[in-house]
């Protein structure tokens, strides 16, 4: 096969978007053609550079607020208030199922009949948005759990468990103090790709252990769980599946906190 013919297909080959026959032809050609192999390597390197260096522009909060306003206006003519959504629960069921597979120390609670604490979820989402808006994501910026955890002592009357999940591509990036439910809470900040995840943690001794189905609020996903006497509220714009996977890590960190 001619080099030029293969050269035009390298890009699709790299993306694994060629049909098996064409892909086989390219593979075979690459074995004997250093020029095409080098070209493929450059394209691969280009992709890595793009993904590493290009900024992912997140929607500014003002834009988000405008879109939410338009959405509210679009719903206004209808007098019926939005009720807890059977729809909205669906992925949460999936999230709970994922966590059930992970097992660990979290007990998977049955889905409660009533809506989970929507007010807390709203506060958690507001805290998440504030952290992005005010350029105040972290008070202590560190990927080291042994730096972040001690930072909280003396600032809070409890010691939140802090685990870095960098190995699973959810690196810890820091922590800060926040204020939810009328009390100071620990906010742990993680990243997944370009997405920020806020985990709000505070003691909750009376709650039974388990993970509640969470919800979607203002375009953010919220997952809530209780473990070892601590309430966890996880907020992110990350997609539901990956956020559920993260909640699973929180639910059963490999090393015990």
């Amino acid at each position, binding site marked *: 096969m001619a080099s030029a013919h293969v*050269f*035009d*297909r*390298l*890009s*699709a080959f790299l*993306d694994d*978007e060629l049909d098996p026959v064409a892909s086989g032809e390219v593979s075979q050609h690459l074995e004997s053609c250093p*020029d095409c192999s*080098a*070209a493929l390597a*450059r*394209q691969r*390197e*280009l*992709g890595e*550079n*793009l*993904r590493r*260096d*290009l*900024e*992912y*522009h*997140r*929607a*500014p909060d*003002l*834009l*988000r607020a*405008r*879109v939410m306003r*338009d*959405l509210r*206006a*679009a*719903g206004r*003519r*209808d007098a*019926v*208030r*939005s*009720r807890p*959504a059977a*729809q*909205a629960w669906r*992925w949460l069921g999936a999230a709970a199922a994922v966590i059930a597979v992970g097992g660990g120390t979290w007990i998977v609670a049955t889905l409660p009949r009533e809506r989970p604490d929507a007010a807390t979820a709203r506060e958690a989402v507001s805290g998440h948005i504030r952290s992005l808006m005010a350029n105040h994501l972290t008070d202590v910026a560190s990927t080291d759990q042994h730096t972040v955890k001690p930072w909280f002592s003396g600032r809070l009357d409890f010691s939140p468990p802090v685990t870095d999940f960098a190995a699973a591509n959810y690196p810890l990036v820091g922590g800060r103090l926040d204020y939810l439910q009328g009390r100071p809470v620990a906010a742990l900040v993680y990243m997944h790709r370009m997405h920020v995840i806020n985990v709000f943690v505070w003691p909750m001794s009376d709650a039974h252990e388990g993970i509640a189905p969470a919800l*979607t609020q*203002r*375009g953010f*996903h919220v997952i809530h769980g209780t473990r070892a006497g601590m309430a966890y509220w996880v907020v992110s*714009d990350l*997609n*539901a599946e990956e956020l559920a996977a993260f909640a699973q890590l929180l639910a059963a960190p490999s090393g015990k906190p």
Partner: protein
Amino acid sequence: MTHEESRETTGPEPHLSPRERERFDECVLPYLDAAYNLARYLLRDGDQAEEAVQEAFLRAIRHFGGFRGADGRAWILSIVRNTCFTQLRRRRSGGAMVEFDEEAHSLEAELSAPEADLARAIASESVHEGLGRLAAEFREALVLRELEGLSYKEIAHVMGVPIGTVMSRLARARKQLLLALGAGAKESV
């Protein structure tokens, strides 16, 4: 051209029932960041990107009743890119509709460069600057592929073109970007 310029805000009142609103929150709203990111790379201006995304979401709200598909991301991104390209066409040619011609958007160097000249391509110039030199259609393909991680099928859906066009456009976009980066490196020496 006149219908191109008519703003969605002048149309009938957008309306969503509570059920539709829930579905919108689930299927479309999570991609607000993706929408803004795409608009930002297409228009290369923060304010214009915000305006385009808000307009696109209004359009999406208005037409959401007709959305039956499963892929809310591709759906909203296609509305966003169409909104952006409408703006770009106004900029480019005072409003006239111009079909994108891939051949016409070849870098001169691309036509004459032997493949070997691509060898020193990835260099000091930032990929961001290099990307900025490409035609919007090529930037779009690269952003959807590299930053959003969409499949060719999904990209085809967003752009409204056949998969084969996605394939050739990405190939050309990568080639041109490699050349642009290489050229930048030479200039900066």
